[in-house]
């Protein structure tokens, strides 16, 4: 089943008096439980693509379908709601709230919805990422890798269908990166699709396939799968 679909998506920005095309008529499909890495040079449109899939931004043209629902024309409020329901985010800078414990950070997204997720679920997720003994620790008591694992647990608290990660290993050493990628790739077992934007070649090793963006277009060199292409 398809988890994410970008259909003929173009994204343009105003930059001063110039119009910059960040994504140019992109078509991407990601299946349920699939791990896709997105690579490309800086400014190639990787993060823009992630923001569109994450419903943080709107395309200039084309359609964005997430979790089987066309989200292109949704209102700001509805997109935010949808984001909380079906998408999990893991960022390079973790963005844990320093005044909340690991467990509270994991449960933070539930403050914005009516879900009755109890602390047992947060503890279970922290246990799954190997932090069962750190639930009451504050972020300043955790290492970079531990913080990123808390962020992974947080991204899963609302049982998302898609996990989006932006340079998840960007701030981590080699060993920790391997561990984090292991955790991320494990979430596929529960049917969660993973899309990872990265410069890190190691991510590609864990991914089912890799999409390369160059100047806002999908690169031909990586269009080795039928699911990805410049034309629908």
């Amino acid at each position, binding site marked *: 089943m398809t988890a994410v679909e970008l259909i003929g998506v173009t994204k343009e920005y105003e930059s001063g008096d110039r119009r910059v095309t960040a994504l140019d008529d992109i078509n991407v499909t990601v299946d349920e439980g699939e791990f896709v890495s997105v690579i490309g040079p800086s400014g190639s449109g990787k993060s823009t693509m992630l923001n569109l899939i994450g419903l943080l931004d709107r395309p200039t043209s084309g359609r964005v379908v997430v979790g089987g629902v066309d989200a292109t024309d949704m209102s700001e409020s509805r997109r935010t709601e949808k*984001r909380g329901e079906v998408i999990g985010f893991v960022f390079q*800078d973790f963005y844990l*709230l320093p*005044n909340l414990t690991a467990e509270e950070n994991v449960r933070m997204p539930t*403050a914005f919805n009516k879900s009755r997720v*109890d602390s047992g679920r947060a503890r279970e997720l922290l246990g799954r990422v190997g932090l069962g003994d750190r639930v009451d620790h504050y972020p300043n008591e955790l290492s970079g890798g531990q913080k990123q694992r808390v962020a992974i647990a947080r991204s899963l608290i609302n049982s998302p269908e898609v996990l989006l990660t932006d340079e998840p290993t960007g701030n981590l050493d080699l060993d920790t990166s391997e561990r984090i990628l292991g955790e991320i790739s494990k979430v596929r077992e529960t049917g969660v699709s993973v899309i990872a934007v990265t410069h890190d070649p190691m991510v590609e090793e864990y991914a089912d396939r890799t999409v390369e963006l160059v100047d806002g277009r999908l690169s031909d060199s990586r269009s080795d799968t039928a699911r990805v292409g410049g034309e629908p």
Partner: protein
Amino acid sequence: MNPKPTLVGMAVRNLTRSRFRSGLACAGIAIGVFAIAALGIFGNVLAVEATSTIGEIGSEVVVTPNGEEGYTSIPETVVDEIERATSGTPSAAILTASGLAASRGETASVTFYGTENPGAVFEASEGSLPRVFRTGAAVGSEVAERLSLRVGDRIETEVGSYRIVAVLQGSETQISPVSPDEAVVVPETALGTGGGYDQVVLSGESGGGASEAADAVRETVNARENRVTVFELSSVVEEIDDFFSLLSGFLISLGAISLIVAGVSILNVMMMSVVERRGEIGVMRAVGGQRGDVVRIILIEAVALGVVGSVFGVALTSIAVAALYYLTPVGASAVFDPGTFFYLGTAFGVGVAVSVLSGIYPAWSAANEDPVDAIRD
């Protein structure tokens, strides 16, 4: 099981993150609330004290001959007209003279008041004032003290020798149509020359009653000609009240300035906090937090700062009010006047309101930050 994180919980935790900064913001509000409440209460205490001192004269109307039209006294017929026009309001037609009084070899200079109805103007602290005054004399407290007089003693005066029937209550105020302290009140026949009276004093039961009586005199006695001058002491009280309102307003304005400064400090604290937490707020938005949720968190923080600061401000003011009561001669009725509680409540409310107003812009600015930009930077 730990409770689910709430917006209130997150807001309060945010404030404890930089306790010193939050503490300074609270201190600003506390000082502002203290300034408004303390200055408001101070003005109110002054007004209450002044009103209680001058309050009794507020209900008296003094009718005197209109000198500008050539009248030097109020004839008996006009006194009758005044009494008819103001039936129900106790009145006393008074003759006045200065002179000497003596007893047991001591002499004092006094003011003689001749009236048939001293009870309308004077009150007795010893003895009693007869309803119809025909014999005896009542003396003021200072005269009684100087001449060592008590009820039953005799006093020798230029207008006759009298037995003392009453000692008058001392005046609490300088503003009065008669001065009871140096008075020797005698039956009007003692001073009577048949030429009319020097003044008629009407004692209304309230400011409103006095005002009606004054109007009645103007409409009847002065209907054709301005024979008498009608002076309402309540008008003096009104002017004094106006002055105290102005003073209170001025004092509160001073306090308000400090509260505005405190509001700006809260605005600054909240803006710094919002800028520092830009990424975190972006993540909140990314994980499903609506703009309204972000606004609520920031406003809850502002309200919490305002409430804590205002509670301290009210506590400080309460200590100052207690000190005012214990360390100064100000009476309990002035210190614990309802106005005191009004100013405490108002200052608390204004403190919280200023904090909320100061939180609106930071909240709006945080909620409208594009999460994409917030997370990227």
